[in-house]
Each structure stands twice: as C-alpha cells, then as structure tokens.
C-alpha cells in the first residue's frame, strides 16, 4: 500500500494534470496551513455475508467475508489517522447465519471492526423491529441513525437516533440517515407501528440542523436506492432536492459504481454519492482534505481522483 504522503502527492498531480497550470498554482497557494484530513470507509447491503462466497465455481467465489474486511480496515487505520467507518443498511438477511442467529454475528463483527454508525435497511426488519432493537442494543455499540422513521412506541425508539455529530481530527462531522418506504416492501407485522416520513423533507430538516450546529461535513447514510427508472424517490432526488449534505453513502439497489457520482444540490453545491454493490465484496474509501477556504466547489476545483485496489 502506498503511504499517505505519496498518495496525497499523486492526488495533487492527478488534480493538477486536469487543470490549467495557473489555476492549479493558485489553488495550491490558497491551501490553508491548518488543513485537516478525514478518511471515510463505507459498506452497504452486506446481507449477513459473514463468510466469503463459497468456492463452488460461482461468480464471486472466495470474495468478501468479514475477516478479510476487518484485516483491510485494520491496515487502513494503521496508515490514516482519522477514520470514520459507516454502513448504509441491509446488514441482515441472505445467509443461514441470519436464519439461525438473527443478526448477532453480523452486529458483533461490525462492532469489532469499529463501525461508527449505520442506517437501517428494509431487510434489517426481517427478524422484526424488536429483534433489530435487541441485536443493536446487546451487540452493537455503534449508532443506528435514521431521520425519517418514527419509532415512537416500538423497541427501536430507545435505539435509533435522527442524527449524530462525531468529532474527528479537529473536524465536526454530522451524520443523518434515511430509510426506504416500508409499506409494500416489508411485511407490516415486521415493522410494526414504525412510521415512514418523507425522506427528502426530513433529510433537509436534519441537514439544516447539522449545518447550523457548525458541522464541517454532513453525511447522509441512505437506504433509498441509487437510481430508479421511474420517479420513485432515490439518492438522485435526495442529492438534488436538498441542501447542506456533502456526501451520500448509498445502499439498497446493490449498485457497483466505477467512481462516486458528483451531483449538484438545490444551491448548485457538490454532493458526492457513492455505493459499493453488496455482500461486502467491496469497501469504499473516500479521503477528504479540508481547509478554511470557502465557496469553492470541491470537485470542479480539484477533480476527484480514483484508484482501484485489492489488498497488499
């Protein structure tokens, strides 16, 4: 693995090569000495994939598995100082581990990997809302963030939070979460009296709170889905119809993106959207550099650099 310094140099070179020399020079000069770095690692739709896919000749044989993910995360933590580890939901369902243990090893493994927060996917209700609360309470220890489910009167009421602010490396990071419409997707007996609220409206409201509280970065964990053919609410709408959200960690549609999308919000500011497929086959890593310079559009000023990695 390349170390942080060469990585930054390469990023700067890649950015510079895509800009006019003069602009790149100006950008370099403007970089505040008191800059900050933050590494965001993310997964989505891991679906109880505790073990790697079996060696049976099928498409993903040998890939994934929490032990390999844990080793990769440990490696990254040894190089990057300030790391946030996030998940966009559907932790449960998909292998016999869930049928037998109802989410216990999945949540335990996430706690051990040091996840900071997750949001809730539709399949996280598959053992019922009481089971979800039980697993998170007994084995979690990380935040379950969802801003648009009203859990009043359910066991999740004391577990889920609408947002959380995490201080990391001198930065204030605000995290909110949005979940998908449950009616017609999840059997009603599983989600109980959980009420689904308009995700765009709630995301906007909560992102506004986080902005007002002085967050340097606002992240939305979303299980709405990356994109749909129809007009079903997706992360495309979430990005375009809100403000104050910098990054959307996407889930639900099992979409493998070659690189994160950069969309513009209501105010024309950049919103980065990324999703890493499903089953823990990939781990996304976003390295942010922060400074005090205001008003620039992140991506148009410094094009996103993209690298593909396996392991060492």
């Amino acid at each position: 693995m390349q170390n942080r310094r060469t990585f930054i140099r390469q990023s700067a070179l890649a950015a510079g090569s895509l800009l006019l020399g003069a602009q790149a020079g100006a950008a370099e000069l403007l970089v505040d000495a008191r800059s900050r770095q933050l590494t965001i690692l993310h997964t989505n739709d891991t679906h109880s994939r505790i073990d790697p896919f079996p060696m049976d000749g099928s498409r993903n044989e040998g890939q994934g598995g929490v032990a390999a993910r844990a080793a990769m995360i440990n490696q990254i933590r040894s190089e990057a100082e300030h790391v946030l580890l996030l998940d966009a939901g559907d932790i449960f369902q998909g292998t016999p581990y869930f049928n037998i243990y109802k989410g216990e090893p999945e949540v335990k493994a996430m706690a051990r990997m040091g996840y900071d927060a997750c949001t809730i996917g539709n399949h996280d209700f598959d053992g019922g809302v009481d089971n979800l609360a039980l697993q998170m309470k007994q084995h979690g220890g990380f935040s379950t963030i969802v801003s648009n489910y009203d859990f009043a009167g359910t066991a999740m009421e004391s577990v889920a939070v609408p947002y959380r602010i995490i201080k990391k490396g001198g930065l204030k990071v605000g995290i909110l979460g949005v979940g998908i419409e449950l009616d017609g997707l999840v059997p009603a007996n599983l989600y109980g009296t959980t009420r689904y609220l308009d995700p765009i409206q709630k995301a906007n409201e909560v992102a506004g709170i986080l902005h007002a509280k002085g967050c340097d970065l606002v992240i939305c964990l979303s299980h709405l889905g990356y994109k749909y053919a129809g007009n079903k609410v997706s992360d495309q709408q979430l990005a375009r119809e809100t403000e104050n959200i910098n990054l959307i960690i996407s889930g639900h549609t099992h979409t493998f993106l070659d690189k994160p999308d950069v969309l513009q919000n209501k105010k024309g500011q950049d919103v980065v959207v990324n999703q890493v497929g499903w089953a823990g086959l990939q781990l996304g890593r976003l390295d942010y550099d922060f400074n005090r310079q205001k008003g620039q559009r992140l991506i148009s000023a410094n094009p996103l650099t993209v690298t593909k990695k396996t392991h060492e």
Partner: protein
Amino acid sequence: MIFSKYINLLLLLTLSLASCHRAMHPAKLAYHDYKIDAAAPRDSAMMRMLLPYRDSVDKSMNEVLGIAAATLEKKQPSGSLGNFMADAVLDMAAKQFKMPVDFAIINYGGIRSLQLAKGEVTRGKVFELMPFDNLLVLQKLSGDQVQQLFDYLAARGGWPIAGASFVIKNKQATDVLVGGKPLDKNKTYTLANSDYVANGGDDASFLKPIPQINSGYLIRDALLTYIRNLQQQGKPIAEITENRIRNAE
C-alpha cells in the same frame, strides 16, 4: 448564471461573517475502491470470534441434498434458476394442498442468489437462494385477475413462472397460456404464490383482497423437499432454459 453564483457567494460570505464558527470545508477528495478478493489476508481475531457461529452453521447447512446438472442463472424475463424454483413450488403446492394447482409465480426480488452453481446443492445454498420465511399459499383468481397479475409481472420485466406463459408487449402480457391453453375469462384459476406477494408485497396490492389458503408451509421447505425428491429418484436438478415469458420481437 455566473452572476447568480457570485450573489450566492456573497450571501455565504455575509452569513459566515455573522457566525462565529470558523468551519472547515472539503477541498479535495480521492476515492479508493477496495475489492475484497479471495487472496485478501484475514483478521485472525475476527476468525476466532466467529468460529462457534460458523461451526454450528456449517453443521446444519453442509448437508448435500442433490446435484445441479448445470449452473442455473437468475435472469429476466425468464431464466433457468427461476424456472427451477417455479417448477418446484408448483409441484410441491399440489402435493401439500392435495389439489390441482394451475400455475406458480416467484417474486424475482425474493431470489437472493444470482446463480445456483453446478454440482452439490447443500441446505445452506437453498437458504441463500430463499432466506426469507415466506409461506407457500394458494389463491383463486378469475381470468381477469390472472390477466391483471400477468400485466403486473410484465411491467416488472417478468418473474419466474410455471404452468403458464406469455409475451411482454408494451409492458403488458399478451398471448397468455395457462396449462397450454389460452386464458379463459370465465374460468377460476389456482395460483401458488408466496404470502409476501399475496399480502401486497412488492406493491402487488391488488392481490391483497383475494383470500389465501395457507397451511404454514415455507417456500424454502418446498424447495428443500423438491430437491431431495429428485435425488431419491436419481435425478439431478436439470437446466430448463425454456422462455416462459419472453419479450415481443
């Protein structure tokens, strides 16, 4: 356009002067896409923590039930994996409820494996294919309701089906055959369905008012028994590539 951006900038500057917080701003972003491949090193502490779970999962899930003659694929509008599952549900529904069943459907999104690999089929593989505790239920549909159901399947790109066939044209079902015969609007048909879809899941709310015959029989148990039955008869799981639902030319 450019002008309005400057206005926004000015506004932002004014607002930031009014606030005492000196926020940092994302200035640069790099993305790494880590693939977790078969050769990736594994964390031994994690392996140890998971060991007791793995041992008991393996004990109950490694039992070999049958053999797949070929790798079956999940595909729309029709595919070999869906054909196999729909055939299994149709066959087992008739046995379980001891009555003739005209056709069966499987919710495409409810098939949770993209493939069933050629070779030994374990209990665990069937759990991964159908992890949900969905029940096999029967519903009696009028000819019109069958047409409505098939239009719904057509609009969704085709779901696995057994005992019936149709062509998708302009997102609707045409040339509908049930049991090899054209749809009869005056007939009542028996459908083998999952309780999830019958209860209006996947936005199939039109099925919700139709009564269900339910004996608490899991679809996964139907699949497990069907595969065991084939094995006892000395038959493998065959690859059936028949296009029961196809798109119009």
